[in-house]
């Protein structure tokens, strides 16, 4: 019965072709370092899911942000778990992205024909850091407030346009409601949209080109 349905759908959607192209593709004999990209992808999906769950209660307003997170941690069933995964996952994600980058660098996987895979990867690294930067402010506690004050002040040291970058990031000269809301928007809409689009290109290229092999001694 199930088999009949699957073949009905398959005939119309080409499921087995998708399956064969993505999961049954040929890979060279590689080692565990080649799983770092998948580990990053998994953590990214986990961040997305737990993040969506956090927005069920979180309120991006200076008077409520801290209380709403406190509520998640103390009152909501498994709230500590969802927030805990999102909190620790963020740091872990930065680490795996970095290790993944080191792997592709040291194995020379960035070379022809994978230059664009590398370049999209660089954007993903920056976006991941951006996610961490914008997410850090959201609890609106002392640490978040002053860390963001310091980090946005650093941009002021850029020659000529520094003060402009600073006020643009803050939505004014001081950290305010406007800062919190624009960081929230960047954290849940703008940056994730870019990440999804670029991960799409990145993985398309991984599937299209296939992954590199472990370089031999004389390579």
């Amino acid at each position, binding site marked *: 019965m199930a088999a009949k349905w699957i073949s009905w759908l398959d005939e119309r959607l080409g499921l087995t072709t998708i399956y064969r192209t993505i999961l049954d593709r040929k890979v060279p004999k590689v080692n565990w370092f080649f799983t770092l990209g998948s580990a990053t992808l998994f953590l990214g999906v986990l961040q997305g899911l737990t993040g969506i769950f956090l927005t069920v*209660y979180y309120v991006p307003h200076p008077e*409520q942000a801290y*209380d*709403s997170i406190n*509520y998640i941690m103390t*009152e*909501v069933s*498994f709230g500590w*778990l*969802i927030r805990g995964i999102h909190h620790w996952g963020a740091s872990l994600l930065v680490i795996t992205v970095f290790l993944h980058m080191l792997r592709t660098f040291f194995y020379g996987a960035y070379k022809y024909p994978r230059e664009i895979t590398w370049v999209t990867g660089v954007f993903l690294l920056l976006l991941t850091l951006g996610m961490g930067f914008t997410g850090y402010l959201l609890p609106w506690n002392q640490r978040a407030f002053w860390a963001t004050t310091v980090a946005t002040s650093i941009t002021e040291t850029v020659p000529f346009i520094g003060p402009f970058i600073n006020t643009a990031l803050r939505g004014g000269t001081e950290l305010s409601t406007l800062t919190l809301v624009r960081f929230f928007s960047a954290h849940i809409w703008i940056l994730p949209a870019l990440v999804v689009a670029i991960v799409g290109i990145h993985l398309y290229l991984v599937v299209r080109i296939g992954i590199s092999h472990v370089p031999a001694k004389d390579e």
Partner: protein
Amino acid sequence: MPEIEHGGGISRRSFVTGVVAFLGSVIASVIGIPAIGYLIAPGLKKHTSDEWVPIGKLEDIPMDIPILSTFTRTSQIGWERSATSFGVYVVRKSADEFDVFSNICTHLSCRVSWKDDQEAFVCPCHNGIFGKDGSIISGPQPRPLDRFEYKVEDGTLLVHLVEG
């Protein structure tokens, strides 16, 4: 994985499929159950209250005319204290006998109000009409207006507010 029991003829592929399916369902429930709990948590919290609310001095309550009395109570909802307002209609039937009605329509919870010209409580939402004694005159409402318990203490009328 029942296939394993009926004799050694299981292929590597179907063994792996079985293990993946089994672990998959374990992981799905380990994730799914907290997820559902997380989403419905505030709905499962009951905030309860049980108090006698003073409505007014007996000498201020006229005979046989429904009087609307409102009061607000604050409670903790989520991380905020918020105020909920209540309205009761008091109808004095004799020196110490009253009808105390909730102004919440028994149909779908709109607020009813007393109309002098119609001699009735009228609900604006679906035209539910209740008599001065709270009984159904016409409309879709399933039961008469709800009543509050009341008592008189030191010349003051108090109603019993019970929630949860």
